[in-house]
């Protein structure tokens, strides 16, 4: 045990002390941030001076639509009919037009929709702004039509409400929450998929390096091969964990910075800060119409459960696959090329898992999702998709525990198998190894 920790310490320190570690650990979140910042920037920017022609034939707006100062959406009242508006739209005189038919009444119960037509697809931010302002104006008009004075209205609007969301087990199906669960499940499943690859190949490269530099036998003469393998896996796992913690902290910090850096965005979102990971959820939320509903949805998602499961499946999946990657590394010769061809059988279940996961986020209780979340080779990725939907909506406690037990058993299984391959492979030089041979090494006695 002491030797495992010695090996792990070395593996950890040599990696953490490298300049590349600092570069990737700090660089990746900055890059991700820059990526999302660019997306957000262009989303915000694209709505630059969005000119809308309003043909108000029913005179509902009375020549004014709640105009915020400095807003980039401009409403211009015209007296044209739809055909003229269409041609003007084609001539790019306006970015869009809003046509209010003559019979439109704000107080009537008959649903008469307003026609909004734009030259291009309207971005989510712009759409929200337009929607907000039109409906706000209409709301005001309706209220005033019911003899509520402007001052009364203002005083109502200025009252800030504080709502405490509490959730008991009986939950209401909230569209936004489902969309968010989808996003959270997808992102966390995908992250585990990436983790398995990044740190798995890191273990493999470490083993190949030991073989190529011919130090393997020197070490094996003081440490059992299993200790060397486990030490390496634990050390690299610790690097991964540290890296994720740093990333988490950085992303959190950057997220706090966003309102400062993008005040225009802040105007839109007011209460909810943008989480890069939530963009997928925002995409879905868009369909349900209310970006501002995200916050309520976020509160309904059981984050402690998800984070706890994420760490468990991250470590469990990593430990299970890392030993397999180590076994492949031990069978490789001088170059990584050999390893690549041996990698395929290991990559297959990971890729399968991601396919099942995409199904599971939509249908967490489908039979494929249930199977995938119990089978240890796929469960780290698939289960995250189900857990995101919460207990018991996405997964039952029994299934979750069963899946965890299977994963732990799977870890013992692969490690036991891989250790035997590793022991033989690490001392084997100059021979191209096939999977058939690896299997022989694994099943032979002692």
């Amino acid at each position: 045990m002491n030797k495992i920790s010695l090996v792990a310490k070395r593996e950890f320190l040599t990696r953490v002390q490298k300049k590349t570690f600092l570069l990737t650990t700090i660089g990746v979140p900055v890059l991700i941030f820059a990526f999302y910042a660019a997306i957000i920037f262009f989303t915000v920017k694209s709505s630059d001076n969005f000119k809308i022609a309003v043909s108000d034939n029913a005179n509902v707006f009375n020549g004014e639509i709640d105009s915020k100062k400095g807003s980039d959406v401009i409403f211009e009242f015209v007296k044209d009919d739809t055909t003229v508006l269409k041609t003007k739209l084609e001539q790019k005189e306006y970015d869009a037009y809003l046509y209010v038919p003559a019979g439109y009444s704000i107080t009537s119960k008959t649903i008469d929709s307003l026609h909004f037509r734009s030259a291009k697809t309207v971005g989510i931010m712009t759409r929200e702004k337009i929607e907000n302002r039109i409906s706000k104006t209409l709301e005001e008009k309706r209220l005033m039509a019911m003899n509520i004075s402007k001052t009364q209205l203002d005083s109502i609007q200025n009252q800030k409400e504080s709502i405490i969301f509490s959730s008991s087990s009986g939950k209401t199906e909230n569209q936004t929450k489902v969309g968010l669960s989808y996003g959270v499940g997808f992102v966390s499943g995908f992250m585990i998929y990436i983790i398995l690859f990044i740190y798995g190949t890191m273990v493999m490269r470490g083993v190949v390096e030991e073989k190529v530099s011919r130090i393997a036998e020197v070490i094996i003469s003081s440490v059992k091969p299993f200790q060397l393998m486990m030490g390496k896996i634990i050390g690299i796992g610790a690097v991964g964990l540290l890296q994720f913690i740093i990333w988490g902290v950085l992303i959190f910090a950057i997220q706090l910075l966003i309102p400062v850096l993008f005040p225009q965005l802040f105007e839109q979102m007011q209460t909810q800060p943008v989480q890069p990971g939530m963009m997928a959820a925002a995409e879905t939320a868009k369909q349900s119409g209310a970006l501002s509903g995200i916050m309520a949805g976020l509160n309904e998602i059981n984050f402690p459960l998800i984070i706890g499961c994420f760490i468990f499946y991250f470590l469990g999946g990593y430990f299970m696959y890392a030993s397999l990657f180590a076994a492949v590394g031990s069978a490789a010769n001088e170059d990584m090329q050999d390893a690549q061809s041996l990698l395929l059988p290991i990559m297959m279940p990971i890729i399968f898992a991601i396919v099942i996961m995409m199904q599971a986020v939509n249908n967490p209780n489908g039979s494929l999702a249930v199977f995938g979340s119990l089978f240890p080779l796929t469960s780290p990725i698939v289960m995250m998709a189900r857990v995101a939907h919460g207990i018991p909506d996405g997964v039952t406690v029994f299934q979750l525990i069963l899946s965890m037990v299977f994963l732990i058993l799977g870890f013992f299984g692969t490690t036991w198998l891989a250790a035997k391959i590793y022991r033989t492979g690490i001392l084997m030089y100059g021979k191209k190894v096939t999977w058939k041979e690896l299997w022989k090494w694994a099943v032979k006695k002692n």
Partner: protein
Amino acid sequence: MNMSKILELQALRKYYATQKAVDDISFSIEKGSIFGLLGPNGAGKTTLLRMITGIFYPDMGEIMLDGKKFDPINDIQLIGYMPEERGLYKKMKIGEQALYLAQLKGLSKTEAMEKIRFWFKKLEMETWWNKKVEDLSKGMSQKLQFVTTVLHEPKLIILDEPFSGLDPLNANLIKDEIFGLAKRGSTIIFSTHRMEQVEEICDHIILMNLGKKVLDGSVSGIKQSFKENKFSIKIQGENINVGSQAFSILEDKGNGYVLKINEGFKSNDILMHFLQQGVTVEAFNEILPSLNEIFIRLVEGSNARTRSFQQVD
């Protein structure tokens, strides 16, 4: 149990799927001796050494280390092994590397540091501490490798081709250290196929071929047992009669001969023959076969070179 033996192997056997790598080998090694393990490529030396160091488990047979049954987990500290396929972590600093390897052998940090300082000073490596292995020449890293092998003062030091890649100067340096270690009580197993080094260094050797022990004995004893009663004589004189019952001429060198004593005669009979003729004898000595010759004689003819695969039942 014989307590003067550091290592005893009894009927050791290790079969691979296609090869009897080590096939029924027994021998023992005296404490404090320098022991040569010889054999052609593929004779099974490395497999044998890996069993002695606990890397492989023998299929059959027993290993006794220092009078007790060898325990691969705890006895590792008693052994220092420098394998033929050796190397170091290229990106690691030399001092840290030595410390790491010493700690893996079970030394505490302070103990290890003390020993490292001692050896680095002795071999003039003190300035290397913060260098990386990739900055070292091959000879330098070999020196470092040697230091890391003997650092924990093992009772049994196993060196597989320790001089490969070393220039004569560094080879001598390491050789002196090997003698020094033996004098201080360590036992050294020295595996090589460089015979001149074996003759110079080893007290006792065994020769392996095709997984079996072919030869076992002291260097001088083996040479004696393989002698062919050949002598070389250097003389001055003219019209020498070389016809004698005592010997036959193998080679005429102009100012001397290489001859072989016939059965029943002694070396003095040769000298007598020449002295009686009034010839001046300048030099006279017995020609003992070199280990190299013995090696070649024993190994040649076996299918050592073509040994690749055979059926193992």
